[in-house]
């Protein structure tokens, strides 16, 4: 079997006036279409792109600064956060001098209704049940007190 010769693949040829028509088309081409002008237009595009990137970056940073400033303002408004320890529970015991003011009397002799108003005035703002150790225990309204010798 013989080998095909690839050279038999003949191409299409140009028509006789192809060169003239093509040169005419070249010369009719606007000067701006040629590479020199094109390079300048590319320069313009690059300059425009750089300007846009610059302004958008500037705007972005400006916005970021504004947000940062706003955050500082809020801090100032709120003030520093301080964690305080919980208040210590109030002691039930009445200070000793007050206790000393109550003159203990024999339990049998002191009638509760006669001493209650005096004790109530002293322990008005104290806890509901006040233990006045070591000698007296009163109800919150001072109506009943019992004292131990």
């Amino acid at each position, binding site marked *: *079997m*013989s*080998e*095909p*010769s*690839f*050279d*038999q*693949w*003949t*191409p*299409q*040829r*140009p*028509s*006789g006036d*192809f*060169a*003239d*028509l*093509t*040169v005419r*088309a*070249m*010369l009719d*081409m606007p000067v701006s*279409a*040629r*590479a*020199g002008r*094109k*390079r300048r237009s590319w320069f313009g595009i690059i300059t425009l792109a750089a300007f846009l990137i610059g302004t958008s970056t500037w705007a972005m940073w400006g916005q970021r600064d504004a947000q940062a400033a706003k955050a500082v303002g809020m801090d100032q408004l709120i003030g520093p956060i301080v964690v305080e320890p919980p208040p210590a529970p109030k002691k039930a015991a009445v200070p000793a001098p007050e206790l000393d003011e109550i003159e203990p009397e024999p339990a049998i002799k002191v009638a509760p209704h006669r001493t209650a108003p005096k004790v109530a005035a002293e322990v008005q703002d104290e806890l509901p049940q006040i233990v006045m150790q070591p000698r007296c225990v009163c109800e919150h309204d001072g109506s009943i007190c019992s004292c131990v010798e």
Partner: protein
Amino acid sequence: MGIALTAAEQFICEPQATPAGELDAAAIEACQRGEPLALRRFVVCYQNLVFAFVSRMLGAGPHVEDVAQEVFLRAYRALPRFEMRADVRVSTWLLRIAVRLVQDTRKRRRLRTVPLADAPAIHDPHTPESERRRHEIARAFERAAAELPEEQRLVFILAQFHGQSMDQISEIIGIPANTAKTRLFRARTRLRELLSEAWEEYR
């Protein structure tokens, strides 16, 4: 009856051609200045090259002239940037432009091709019988080439008909030289298979 393009047919550039059949630096500089005569010489010098490449890649038809002209117009636009160096061939630069344009054209639209017998041709002195045979063989080649994947056809045409080395093809298409070599081997093998029957019939 070999009628393939020879180097002399591809480059009608004398007397301003380099030994490689290319326009010399002075001629290119005149083109860059936009001198009409120089531009005409440039087109005449490379038109067969461009037509051959475009028609083999896209198939013969009226579109070939349009695409070929667009190749020259793009080259003209890019001429001010073209730097004539010892290692740069104008034909390789033009082929690179043509490859891109052909690829764009194939993506953009389906082309209506016509048999080579109906395509415009330069007058040649063959007898009507040899002419008929020539067209039949050329059609057989077109059908066989149409069977090839485009990347194989591209490498085959650049290597077989335009004398481009693997390195040059690699540069034109942007693929490794070994890949180009593999594609060329596969294209030749496939074309031999496809053409063997037709070749027996027409010889």
